[in-house]
């Protein structure tokens, strides 16, 4: 499957994937949104508002380091089910930031090809 880069929210355009998130075992509450693909991020970052919207409960904690290895905070993490192109994965996410960022703990589960020249993301 192929997805266009997002050139509305990002300049230069950036690869995004449509995802649906929910807590495992229930689709009573779910959020569907485009998420930024960021291979530099160790882990998925999810706005707390999305976590609250699906009713997720914390399951762990991690120390988070940002640019230049600067310590940001010790944060709660949650296990949330991600559905991408019909495939479901249970993924640990950290409650951080204002947009959904797909880190390597999720992206390494898939084969993804980024074609920046044509601004297309191919997903297998």
């Amino acid at each position, binding site marked *: 499957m192929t997805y266009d880069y997002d050139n509305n929210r990002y300049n230069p355009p950036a690869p995004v994937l449509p995802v649906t998130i929910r*807590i*495992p*075992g*229930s689709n009573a*509450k779910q959020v569907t949104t485009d998420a930024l693909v*960021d291979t*530099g*991020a*160790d*882990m998925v*970052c999810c706005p*707390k*508002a999305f976590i*609250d*919207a699906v*009713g997720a*409960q*914390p*399951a*762990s*904690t*991690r*120390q*988070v*380091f*940002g*640019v*230049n*290895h600067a310590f*940001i*905070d*010790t*944060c*709660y993490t949650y*296990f949330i089910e991600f559905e991408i192109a019909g495939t479901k*994965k*249970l*993924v*640990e996410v*950290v*409650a*951080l*930031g*204002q*947009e959904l*960022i797909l*880190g390597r*703990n999720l992206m390494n589960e898939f084969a993804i090809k980024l074609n920046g020249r044509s601004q297309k993301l191919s997903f297998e």
Partner: protein
Amino acid sequence: MILVDEEIKKALHSGEFEISDFSEQCLQPASYDLRIGEEGFTLLVGKVIPIQNEGALEIQPGDFALVMTHEKLRLPTNMVGHFGLRSLYARMGLLLTSGPQVDPGFEGKLIVGLVNFSSQSAILKYLEPFCSLELHRLGRHASVGYQGPYQAQEHITKKVIDNIPKEQFPLAVMLVRQLVAASPSLRPLGTQPSHWVEPHKMLSAFQREKTAFEQLMPQLLKTHHGQYVVVRGETAVLFGMDKAELAKEAYDKWGYGVLYIGLVEEQPEVMHIPTPKIVKNHNDV
């Protein structure tokens, strides 16, 4: 006729009825405050808790508990008791599910059911007055005094526990737990501060699991170094090398609920998000 304080004392002294270990401090104008007794039970813990030894009984949000009174009662057949939860505990979100009557001729300790409908744990300290008992003198003696299964009870027995429904929580309690979990998203949009004040309250159960993990760590380092562990009910219940797989196993086994998954290492788990989009926010621990 409800007995007032002097009548209660007079009836006690004459031996008309009994309240063991009677305390003047528990005597109210027209009632007597029964105290938290030696034993308790909660569904989450799943066993009898020796409150006398542990000092208190903790009832977690949504949990159902049985609490025994410290006092042992003996009522004549012309006296009936009515009891209710002291308002202090009602304001904490506790609901008394048993009573309200102590039958004429009853003898023994009361074992009452409590549900915590609040979003925070309730702590009941040993010997704290928690239940008000009104005593009524009847116009005549009942023809037969109480002869039910709780006559002469002085402990929370297996039989009593077995009578509790096998479901983990009553339906109403499950609904309350789900509402508590969903409460941040039920807040009207646009109200500030948004989602980071209330969760600290509902996180208390999670914090307990996290604290239990930290307390278990010295032992776990000897037995499960380098592995992930699931702590549930303040007990290490699952181990594995893959954190997400372990989470899936736990949720499949017990449903989606409160637990803590930690890495058994000397150093805390870290992650790197080297993007300027991520800055310090209010979701931190």
